[in-house]
């Protein structure tokens, strides 16, 4: 793809907080980046390697809880927790993959789905560490770059933007590398991949660990941004479903999650802001319905029909990106 496709949007998004500093607008943009990142991290395992995870909330929640516990108990800065939380998430992804990836079929999907429920129960049970069902709040210390706390939204915007850029680059790098091609081979046909000398088991574990690491890092961002985490927002089913919805709607590739998040996140956020808390369950009902509708009506995602449409209507020219 040519450089202007990247440079123009990047510059536009970098200058956005200077031009528009309305908190709601920035908030929505932060969440657009957030979900695009989440879906990309999920897609390293779910799309590139073709190993479905129905519980990436496990890794997200581990990151979030690690940051807040290290912060409140040991005064560790969340910036460092990004690596600790990400590392713990990666370790969990690796260990969970160990019993599942030797077997064919969707065992990893079932194991992650079960583990997210177990983690939710554990987070409720260990009240002393996690604050139980009530959750745990990041202490307010005001403007403190060292402790990843800001009084305005713009710094969070830039942090999330940088995280997204890193995620896009990582995803791009992996999908074009030897690892990426090997993962694609595994996705298409495990037996064939294995007969070509690809260590299927090890590479699946690798993909799971990378995917989990970046998801854990996102959990740290989330808890710093919202300053609150509880079992439901860390390990809830809807959290598990979010990256799947964005990725399924957007479709494969780097572009998919970006497009998917740009469409779905503002719509849902605006609905939540205008309709209030009572709407939370309806929002999740809609998310479930969207998930079913995508699989039934548009299993390859929205991006490829959308680009085809754009290419027809706009004189973009050129070859396929």
């Amino acid at each position, binding site marked *: 793809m040519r450089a202007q496709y990247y440079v123009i949007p990047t510059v536009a998004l970098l200058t956005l907080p200077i031009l528009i500093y309305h908190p709601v607008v920035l908030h929505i943009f932060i969440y657009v980046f957030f979900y695009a990142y989440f879906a990309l991290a999920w897609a390293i395992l779910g799309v590139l390697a073709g190993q479905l995870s129905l519980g990436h909330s496990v890794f997200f929640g581990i990151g979030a809880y690690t940051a807040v516990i290290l912060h409140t108990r040991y005064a560790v800065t969340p910036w460092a927790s990004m690596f600790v939380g990400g590392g713990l998430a990666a370790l969990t992804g690796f260990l969970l993959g160990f019993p599942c990836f030797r077997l064919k079929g*969707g065992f990893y999907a079932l194991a992650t*789905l079960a583990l997210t429920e177990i983690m939710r*129960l554990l987070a409720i049970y260990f009240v002393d560490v996690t604050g139980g069902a009530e959750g745990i709040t990041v202490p307010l210390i005001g403007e403190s770059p060292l402790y990843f706390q800001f009084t305005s939204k713009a710094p969070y915007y830039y942090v999330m933007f940088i995280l997204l850029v890193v995620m896009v680059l990582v995803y791009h790098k992996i999908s074009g590398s030897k690892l990426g091609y090997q993962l694609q081979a595994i996705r298409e046909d495990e037996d064939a991949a294995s007969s070509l000398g690809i260590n299927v088991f090890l590479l699946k574990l690798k993909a799971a660990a990378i995917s989990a690491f970046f998801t854990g890092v996102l959990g740290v961002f989330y808890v710093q941004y919202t300053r609150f985490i509880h079992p439901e927002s860390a390990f809830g*089913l809807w959290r598990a479903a979010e990256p799947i919805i964005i990725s399924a709607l957007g479709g494969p590739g780097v572009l998919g999650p970006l497009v998917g998040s740009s469409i779905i996140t503002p719509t849902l956020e605006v609905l939540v802001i205008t309709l209030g808390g009572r709407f939370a*369950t309806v929002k999740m009902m809609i998310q479930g319905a969207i998930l*079913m509708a*995508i699989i039934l009506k548009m*299993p390859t995602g929205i991006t490829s029909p959308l680009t085809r449409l754009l290419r027809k209507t706009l004189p973009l020219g050129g070859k396929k990106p």
Partner: protein
Amino acid sequence: MLPQILLEGVLIGGVYALTATGLTLILGVMRILNLAHGHLIMIAMYITYFLYTLFGVDPFLSIPVSAILMFAVGMTLQRTIVKPVIDAPVVNQMILMMGLLIFLENLAAFAWTHDYRALKGYGGIVYEFMGLRVVSTRLTAFLTALIITLTLYLLVMKTKWGRALRACSMDPEAAMLMGVNLPRVRAEAFGLGIALAGVAGSLITTLYYIFPSVGMHYIIVALVIVILGGMGNIFGALVGGIILGLVEVLTAFYVSSQLKLLGIFIIFILLLLFRPEGLLTKRR
């Protein structure tokens, strides 16, 4: 104390077996893993709950009602969302079912709130037998589950319809060539599987609280039972159900009743590590 706990485990296990028979039936015939099975059980629990609180219907008498209603739900689901993905990749099927599960849970939360409910004023008589105490409702639930599982076993193994069903699960194309109406058998199997979820739901209301996210518990239990007993194996589901019932009560007793799923999860991981083909399947 221990014999008492083990007895409780067996009684609950019988009902758990029933949650898995529906799942394993659908998996065997349609090759679709119904991840929303637990949440359909949850819907049946609400049906039973409202029949009891609004009309005073005994949960055991509401079994036919919830079975028929859930059969209708199953047929509708199969026609609208399951049939189109029957040949789709497994990943798509799982995502679709995940969507259904989230939809159902939040539908229930929206309609009936997140509150925990129980059948108020419903309880059984306590029998004493050789120092063991048995609550009559638990015993009835266990026996009902056993009878239904046995009936299903006979239906699948001894009737003409059952033979068609097994043929479809072994080799759909050959079954079709032999004159089996494949789409119809699949639809009926799905409906029956969901009806079994309905029966299980009615029985569970006598044992446990009713709330929207309770479905997660039962889908995990049912999945592990299916892996334990072997796919499509009704007898295996019964054995697996009783094993998990025992694991659950022992975890609840020795660890914490809040963490009873933890024991089941550990069994799940151990199974994947050492016997992914199930306990009853012979090793090749």
